[in-house]
């Protein structure tokens, strides 16, 4: 029983010289490994506002609010940092090359006021239906779809006009001039139910179809 004691004694002496194992945390900041999964952060230039992350989030930490009464309608994407479980599903399912929302290295997330500090937001421009005013989707999302499907996008006025507007090729006054339900409406930016109703109403006029 003496020998084991010597072995432990050696370990104790070694520990005496190596100093404490614990880090001097509040004094010295902790830098996590680069693989660390920290708080997800939106990149407002890359996010397209498609809401895939909201759909997949297992904790329900992502939600959105559509502000349609503003001069420029906006979608506000909200990420609740206190509900987040840092699983990385949002990044994995992000349609914008997994770059719209990305896990960061942030881990110091404590705050005082849950009402004010527990979330972060980004704003994305919305495209509204020109007849009923309902939300079609985010501008960037429609452009993303139009770019993805290439020339096929020209079969859908909503898509190609959103895209062309970006280059300044479409005069907005021109399209919105005709307010009545005429054929000109077909070239407006419309939501799906309005487009269906429009197509149905202008059916007899088959020359252009």
């Amino acid at each position, binding site marked *: 029983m003496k020998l084991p004691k010597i072995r432990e004694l050696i370990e104790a002496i070694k520990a005496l010289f190596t100093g404490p194992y614990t880090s001097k945390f509040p004094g010295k900041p902790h830098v996590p490994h680069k693989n660390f999964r920290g708080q997800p952060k939106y990149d407002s230039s890359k996010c397209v506002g498609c809401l895939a992350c909201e759909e997949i989030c297992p904790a329900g930490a992502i939600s959105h609010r559509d502000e349609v009464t503003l001069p420029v309608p906006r979608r506000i994407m909200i990420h609740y940092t206190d509900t987040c479980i840092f699983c990385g599903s949002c990044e994995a399912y992000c349609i914008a090359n997994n770059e719209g929302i990305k896990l960061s290295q942030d881990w110091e997330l404590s705050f*005082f006021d849950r009402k004010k500090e527990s979330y972060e937001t980004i704003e994305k421009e919305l495209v509204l239906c020109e007849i009923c005013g309902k939300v079609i989707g985010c501008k960037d999302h429609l452009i993303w779809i139009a770019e993805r499907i290439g020339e096929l996008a020209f079969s859908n006025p909503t898509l190609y006009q959103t895209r062309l507007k970006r280059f300044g090729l479409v005069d907005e006054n021109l399209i919105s001039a005709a307010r009545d339900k005429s054929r000109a409406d077909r070239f407006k930016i419309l939501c799906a139910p309005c487009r269906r109703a429009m197509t149905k109403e202008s059916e007899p006029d088959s020359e252009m179809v």
Partner: protein
Amino acid sequence: MAKTIIPIGPFHPLQEEPEYFSLTVEGETVVDVDVELGYNHRGIEKLSESKTYDQVPFVVERICGICSTSHPYAYVKAVEDISGCTIPERAEYIRTIIAEGERIHSHLLWLGLAGHFLGYNTVYMWVWKLREEILDVMEILSGNRNNYAMFKPGGVRRDIREEDIPFVIKKIDSIVKTLDMLKKAILDDPVLHARLKGIGILKREDAIDYSALGPTSRASGVAKDVRKDAPYGAYDKVEWKMIVTEKGDVFDKVVVRVLEVFESISIMKSCLLSLPKGPIDANLADIVPGEGIGVHEAPRGETFHYVRSDGSNRPTRHKVRAPTFMNLPTCKSTVIGAAIADAAIILASIDPCYCCTERLAVCRIDGKRMMNGGELIRLSVEKTEKLKKEMGRR
């Protein structure tokens, strides 16, 4: 002699988990024991019926912070059992690596706590220092110290990067060296011998009768291990041996766990060295209607998940059976007859995990009112406000 009832709980002073043991004692000897659970029942099985197949792993991962791989592993195996798909070999290896890493840290955690229960805090400090190293390894491999978020039906979510492997292996080797010293120090320590040998004996017949699992049954000579009996993952591709001891006392349970850590390290290392290349996800198609069972040898024993699907994207029934659920009743045969001073360590010797065993938190304040999640948060917000004022901020 008069009987006295000694309550331990509802909040265990040492294990720091909510459970209630009432020990009926005659003098120094425990004559009856009763367990009361349910202080932490969160309705996970019900919750999981409202999540999609892809989201459930995150829910079951949070059943318990220590078994944060066991539950997802058993769940994904159950889902794969429904669809009958095979998963890529690389994913199997990565799953095994993560599961074994968890076993190492879980056994070390228990070993440290066992020292703490006995009042032997040197063991506690030493072992937990080592456990920290293994948690660092897990952070490199999965991105977090616990709750690895690696599992999904059909594969894994995250790949292990080639450039991390040499560093991880170096770290594991350094752990083995210290652990070896620790093993010798613990296994021939006279104090631990005096405290642990011959107490809390779980007889072989009792272990079978209670269907005890994991190290609890293996210490009693019941050689059952899901990893050997029904091989899955990479367990049949690497060399390792099952640790079985005969006596069934608390010391044997320590021995089983300490030696299992070495086996786990060797499994983890050989998996890392022979990690095959290829895809990590089988891209599981829709789940067909049916039922499936998944089992995984968690650090505490076999975790059992039963999933039933009706063809939609959510499970219609998900049953979770944690190992402690089977192991806890064995206290009736181990604690009765023991001295009261030994009761704490005997009750702890099954490595109980109450979070797993209970799966609505309801608290009572002022004797009659019930508090739910929202009110508890409000209470905590009020407390934060108070603290804020005290600290003189804003």
